[in-house]
């Protein structure tokens, strides 16, 4: 399909269009080939790396960060940022646990609570950004602390375990394909991929997606075209919040508990995944596929370095270098 669009562009007199499209494709290819390269290198360095159980471990480790990164990709494409996704995720997990484990309500209701709470948090950030004109960095930093504090208050600073609802952990750790004997993909991974496909479709084929890009590209022009940009921006933050709710359910289910102290730092991993995948922090550009690749690069790196017994401190250093390198490549591409 990529070939088809290229051919169509080349017909037009704008030769530069052809060249830059090539560059954009190269960037996506770069991210993907980096991932492939990582897998090959680790496979050579350690016999334990390319094993079904380890690949599943990588995917499972990607699930939560991947889901958060999908949500934050929408926000970043509008030219905004959300620093509250990690703590909002935790807050939704705590609320789900409160519903299921403390109030003894059905699991489905717990899931619903997480989604609604997430959407409300996102909506609040959106209103602060769009209506009160608070810079997204500050508004969501406030939301980060706010949700973190609320999580600790509600859970009395202690983990809440789903002892009364064993089925809750099945949401993440169960599998829809029990027949694949050695390769039982956990539901969390399947949910990640389904969400990715859905998000990608929404971004490219709906009004919502179109305005997400348009606002990031030139908000004033969108406003002058008679579109209520505030409302769409709020919607983007709300959808991101909803997706945090999904991540909250996944992590609570995987840990079979809500850990109120967890969450801070996840937002940076999610943003890093989006950026490595080619989403531009200045807005207007980004793909879900890129973000997923970015999330996989991060988890593959962590996993591989751990297998090679690289100390955790050095794993963090390496991730930092990778992020700087990815953004530098993006800058080079834009400078032309």
């Amino acid at each position, binding site marked *: 399909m990529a070939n088809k669009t290229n051919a169509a562009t080349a017909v037009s007199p704008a030769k*530069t269009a052809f060249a830059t*499209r090539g560059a954009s494709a190269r960037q996506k290819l770069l991210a993907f080939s980096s991932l492939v390269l990582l897998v090959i290198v680790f496979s050579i360095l350690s016999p334990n790396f390319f094993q079904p159980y380890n690949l599943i471990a990588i995917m499972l480790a990607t699930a939560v960060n991947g889901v958060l990164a999908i949500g934050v990709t929408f926000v970043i494409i509008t030219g905004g940022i959300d620093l509250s996704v990690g703590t909002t995720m935790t807050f939704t997990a705590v609320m789900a646990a409160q519903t299921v484990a403390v109030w003894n309500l059905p699991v489905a209701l717990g899931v619903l609570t997480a989604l609604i709470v997430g959407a409300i948090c996102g909506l609040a950030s959106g209103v602060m950004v769009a209506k009160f004109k608070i810079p997204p960095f500050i508004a969501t930093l406030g939301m980060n602390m706010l949700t973190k504090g609320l999580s600790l208050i509600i859970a009395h600073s202690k983990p809440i375990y789903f002892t009364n609802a064993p089925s809750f952990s099945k949401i993440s750790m169960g599998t829809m394909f029990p027949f694949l004997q050695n390769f039982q993909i956990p539901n969390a991974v399947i949910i990640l991929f389904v969400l990715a496909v859905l998000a990608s479709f929404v971004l490219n084929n709906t009004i919502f997606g179109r305005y997400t890009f348009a606002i990031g590209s030139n908000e004033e022009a969108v406003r002058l075209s008679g579109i209520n940009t505030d409302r769409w921006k709020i919607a983007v933050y709300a959808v991101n919040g909803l997706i945090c709710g999904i991540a909250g359910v996944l992590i609570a289910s995987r840990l079979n508990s809500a850990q109120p102290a967890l969450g801070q730092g996840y937002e940076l991993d999610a943003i890093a995944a989006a950026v490595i995948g080619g989403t531009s922090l200045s807005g207007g550009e980004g793909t879900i596929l890129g973000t997923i690749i970015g999330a996989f690069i991060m988890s593959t790196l962590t996993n591989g370095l751990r297998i090679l017994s690289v100390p955790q401190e050095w794993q963090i250093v390496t991730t930092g270098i990778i992020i700087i390198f990815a953004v530098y490549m993006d800058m080079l591409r834009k400078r032309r």
Partner: protein
Amino acid sequence: MAEPIIVVRNLSKAFPGVQALKDVQFDLYPGEVHTLVGENGAGKSTLMKILSGVYQRDSGEILIGGKPVEINTPRAAQRLGISIIHQELNLMNHLTAAQNIFIGKEPRRAGGFFLDEKAINAKAKALFDMLHVDLDPRVKVGELTIAKQQMVEIVKALSFDARVLIMDEPTSPLNEAEVEELFEIIRHLRAQGVGIVYISHRMDELFRISDRITVLRDGQYMGTYRASETNLDQVISLMVGRKIDESARRVPKGKPGEVVLEVRNLNRGRLVKNVSFTVRRGEILGFAGLMGAGRTEVARAVFGADPVDSGEIYVKGKKVVIRHPRDAAKHGIGYLSEDRKRYGLAVGMSVIDNICMTDLPTFINSLGVLKPKKMEKTASEQIQALSIKTPSLLQKVKFLSGGNQQKVVVAKWLVKNCDVLFFDEPTRGIDVGAKQEIYQLLNELASLGKAIVMISSELPEILRMSDRIVVMCEGRITGELDGSTATEEAIMKLATQRETMMKTA
């Protein structure tokens, strides 16, 4: 003749301190190109902004289709069939041409939430075909040339069923071939009965595209003429026929001294073509021209702020290489930017810090610690020499008046011992009283033996201050005039002398 689409009667608009429009008349018929001309600040843009709902009028009437209307917002203007194409295009670079055109009114599939990309592209293609524009609707706008982006804007405006299209200086970023292409489109639009309001600085275009011409001067209506019944000289004299205060004209004190700066065959892109000039000690050289003529670009290139393609620069007879502003400063060349707040001053910092900033290494001891006494002494000297009005050395620059801010910038360069000072629009955004002070300052600097290059778009200012006047148009120097004998008309003619005109003339 058909009924006019728009009739404007006795329109007035004031901004604090300026009467931008006074009793202005204007009308527009379907299928005509009505051009608005006037100097910078004559009120053209204000009139257009009122018609497109950006500003509100103070008094007067606007009739559309014979009925009085209120145009309170850009949306209201769109609903009335008035679209405007601003000088700065309002497009989303990351979206395709078709997506830009149909933003906010995308064709949708059942359900109303899903986009019908095929329909968007097909509709855009149909609009392009109607105007004979050769453009792929699927190309991202950021990858198009400015000329093509402009066409996307035009098509976007038309997709609102515009009956009136206002174009503000559409040709300023275009080259000759692109201008012709744009005119072709304008002719198609005219044939389809769209009324076009055209604003331009380029005098030759007036007679190529206009049916009628309305002249504004200092916010006043000077008259409307059929293009076939007037000529360039008449239009120019209507535009600039303002009396100048002759007594204020600068009298050079003694002979100008040696040549301090000589620029030979400077080239940079489209806006600096084969520019050569000299400046002498004690002289004020005026750079006249319309906005976008390339004057600022010349100054920036000489100053090393932008790389040059070719050319030679001599300071006091010696050839120098300037690749960076610090090279220029080393050779005694200073540049005072038009936008003081962005490029000239750290407005949040104190007067003393700003004055000493360019030359900080001379204010430190061997340990790298600043010597406040020495800084105070230098700053006080400058404050006295330039009579900068500030309550203290520690006053933040942002609390000073425009004129005094300008003086602080000058002080910065005097501290560096500059011999050549480029002033880019030194009085822009400064009130009348402060202007006098700036003029006095320029005269004093000249009599101190500095060589001054003053870029200004205000003709009276150029005439009043300059010993010699260099006029630029489209990157070339089109002529040099003696300051004591030059007239506004003579400058205007040179300032609008485009390459194509010279060939035909």
